[in-house]
């Protein structure tokens, strides 16, 4: 596609339920990032995927959070047993490494609300 696609755009879930967020990067972008942005705060790094290399999971806040990506395709971020503190916008970005830092493209995000 022309841009990074994220779904759903909005998700309201009950505390304790699991949610799955999806990111469809730009074709050919081997690098994919997940960020979290709480209301009024900056972007918080969660996880990074680069091709078939081991992902950098150092930003995942707890073991309730996990993410997967197969090759250079779609990524899913799963939050188990959601808590109200998980409410945030979850942004995905992909990058074409041949264009280095100019190549970041962000999706429009998923706004997660845990009630």
């Amino acid at each position: 596609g022309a841009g990074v696609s994220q779904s759903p755009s909005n998700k309201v879930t009950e505390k304790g339920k699991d949610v799955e967020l999806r990111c469809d990067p730009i074709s050919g972008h081997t690098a994919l990032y997940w960020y979290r942005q709480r209301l009024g705060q900056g972007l918080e790094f969660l996880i990074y995927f680069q091709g078939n290399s081991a992902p950098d999971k150092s930003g995942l806040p707890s073991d309730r959070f996990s993410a997967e990506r197969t090759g250079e395709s779609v990524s899913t971020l799963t939050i188990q047993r959601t808590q109200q503190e998980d409410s945030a916008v979850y942004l995905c970005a992909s990058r074409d490494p041949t264009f280095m830092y100019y190549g970041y493209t962000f999706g429009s995000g998923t706004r997660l609300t845990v009630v």
Partner: protein
Amino acid sequence: EDKVVQSPLSLVVHEGDTVTLNCSYEVTNFRSLLWYKQEKKAPTFLFMLTSSGIEKKSGRLSSILDKKELSSILNITATQTGDSAIYLCAGLKKTSYDKVIFGPGTSLSVIP
């Protein structure tokens, strides 16, 4: 721990005013500083600054990096209501991949 700090956190100006947004960073293995504009949800890229003292310009926006002071400023001249957004500053690390540390952002509101 790496961190990026921005000031002010929020700002309200009138159309036509000039604004200066500040960013300071403490990022180990620092490579570059990035500025993004965030309207609604998706940030869009503005500038990447790697060398100290070299101003980058794009229309009414300009930015410069001071590596001695570990800081950067983003200037917007003759502000317009369309400039209303959150401006994010981010530090880029020299890691095996480019890990980006974002600041909290400055929320700019331009009123007619």
